[in-house]
């Protein structure tokens, strides 16, 4: 066991997979010699060589196209998009190409590609670095979307993502990269994709969330407990496509109330899909409608007003109060 930050857990996972499977290739802008703009690939090129870990020209469509061609030839590419706001450049190669490869070839070709990319607010980045664009890929049949919230989960989920025979988008929240350390086992372990984690137990309301909003929601739950003596159960989805509806339903059977918290704008992200699934599968267990605690439907905010725009623990508590007063 070792104390690791999330970024160290990610590097560690990449290291293990590069060692375990020679078909694994890591590439992108500045991931080679430089070790990545966040040091996620630090030391990997030196250890595995320029054939396994390498820099590419600055072109996102080219990078994912490269991954696509390598996958068709039996490799397991782990490309990086430097910031997920740049994904629009690679949109066709993800949503138009790799996501459809198995289907359009009736299984002849597949794309075991893991796209790693940082995103997320709270660190005052310039434009189009922090945007939460995961929702775009919930609407893309054929890809899975994974968002870890801790070092332990990041390692186990990344190992599962790389080993998955189909494309996975692995989104790494920048604010979580170095915000805390956690015990992470040195040995291999996997966390299954599509399985949520109850990070705080409670009986009065369920908070369904993911990414950096997991910690914010736990904070809110503690505040709520102190202020109202009510206990919120916090579910970290970990994978937002597919959504683990079973865990959510189980929780709602106990709490009868739920809110969804996300960093993406109200109309974006996973919230609407989560509410729809709850509606379909747990309506008879609900005492109140499922509410969403999200930022408004504006473009991602300018750096100086970011903290006012992102959901705060107080905003989540207010939403919990609303849902319990209905």
């Amino acid at each position, binding site marked *: 066991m070792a104390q690791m930050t999330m970024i160290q857990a990610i590097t560690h996972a990449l290291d293990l997979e590069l060692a375990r499977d020679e078909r694994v290739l890591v590439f992108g802008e500045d991931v080679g010699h430089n070790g990545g703009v966040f040091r996620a690939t630090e030391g990997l090129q030196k250890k595995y060589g320029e054939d396994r870990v390498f820099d590419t020209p600055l072109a996102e469509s080219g990078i994912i*196209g*490269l991954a696509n061609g390598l996958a068709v*030839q039996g490799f397991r590419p782990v490309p990086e998009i430097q910031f997920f706001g740049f994904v629009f450049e690679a949109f066709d*190669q993800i949503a138009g190409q790799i996501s459809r490869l198995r289907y359009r070839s*009736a299984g002849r070709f597949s794309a075991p590609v893991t796209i790693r990319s940082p995103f997320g607010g709270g660190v005052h980045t310039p434009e189009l670095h922090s945007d939460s664009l995961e929702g775009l890929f919930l609407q893309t049949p054929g890809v*899975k979307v994974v968002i870890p919230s801790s070092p332990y989960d990041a390692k186990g989920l990344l190992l599962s993502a790389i080993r998955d*025979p*189909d494309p996975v988008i692995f989104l790494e929240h920048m604010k979580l990269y170095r915000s805390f350390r956690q015990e992470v086992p040195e040995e291999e372990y996997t966390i299954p994709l599509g399985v949520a984690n109850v990070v705080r137990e409670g009986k009065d309301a369920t908070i369904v969330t993911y990414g950096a909003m997991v910690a914010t929601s736990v904070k809110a739950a503690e505040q709520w407990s102190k202020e109202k003596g009510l206990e919120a159960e916090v579910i970290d989805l970990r994978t937002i496509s597919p959504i683990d*509806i079973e865990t959510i339903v189980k929780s709602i059977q106990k709490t009868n109330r739920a809110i969804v918290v996300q960093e993406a704008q109200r109309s974006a992200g996973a919230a609407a899909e989560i509410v729809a699934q709850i509606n379909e599968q747990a309506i008879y267990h609900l005492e109140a409608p499922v509410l969403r605690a999200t930022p408004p439907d504006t473009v991602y905010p300018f750096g100086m007003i970011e903290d006012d725009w992102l959901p705060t623990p107080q905003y989540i508590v207010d939403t919990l109060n609303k849902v319990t007063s209905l």
Partner: protein
Amino acid sequence: MLSTSAAQFEVPYVQVLDENGNVTNPDRVPSLNDEQLRDLMKRMVFTRIWDQRAIKLARQGRLGFYAPVAGQEASMIGSEFATNKDDFLLPGYRDIPQCYFHGYPLHQLFLYSRGHQLGGKVPDDVHCMIPQIIIGAQIVQTPGVALAFKLRGEKRVAVTYTGDGGTSQGDFYEGMNFAGAMKLPAVFFVQNNQYAISVPRELQTAAQTLAQKAVAAGIPGVQVDGMDILAVYSVMREAVDRARAGEGPTMIEAITFRYGPHTMSGDDPTRYRTQETQEAWEKRDPLIRFRNYLVSKGLWSEQEEQAYIEEAKETINAALKQADETEKMTVPQLIDSMFAEPTQELLRQRAEITGEGAN
């Protein structure tokens, strides 16, 4: 003060046969034996017959999506003929003949046209991607295939095709540039058939040639008479050999023409090109030119061509029959082919459709 030149480039133009089939460039006549020469002609005849048949079938509703190829036989057949069977093709949607001659079964190409999933299930021993609809997408995938060959030390080449309009896409430049930067075994083959649907090539770019776009990627660019199969073969062979020898990618621009519409989905070429243009290009027909050449060498005759046409028709009919006999798809099958393991959500949706074990 006079500026000095930072770089210079030139774009070679290659022709071997003139419009009448006379050799204009003896140094570039490729070394092909009589059997191979006759094979090239047979393939062009087959493709012309196939195209005529496919157009009729599309009109009758017996084929779905079809992009006519008449006029482009030399460019398509000559370039594919220069590849090895284990070289990997990444075709665009018009590049059906190259797929076929690379081993893609004809009945599956019919199924692809009709919109049947099995049309895309390329046999394991056929090194060809499914025809690409998104113009340029195949071009950024090509460096990935080529890099795989390079990493494994395999002497194989990735070959991709696009049209004149496709050279305006960002992916066209990105693909060539990646292949150049990584010195990959790849060939980028542009079939400049003068029009992207109704938009003439002059409206795509002010560049004097499309081949010179290779300069931006730092790779060789060659222009070839795309109605001259010997020139196409010769230029392509050189590019493929260079790639195989580890010397990096090449871009080729073949000057050609499609006699028919853009696709069979309602395009009417008389709206955007004149009868004169059409007739001028018909005089350059690749079949006339190569037929004359072979006849002058005593390698081809009218009777042989007629006999071969009958053979081609039989092949096409047999493939059509096989396509007709292919089992219909079902929606549950589509669900099952999304992932290696279906997600819980897909299983629920599948059960909803089949009525089995639904919750």
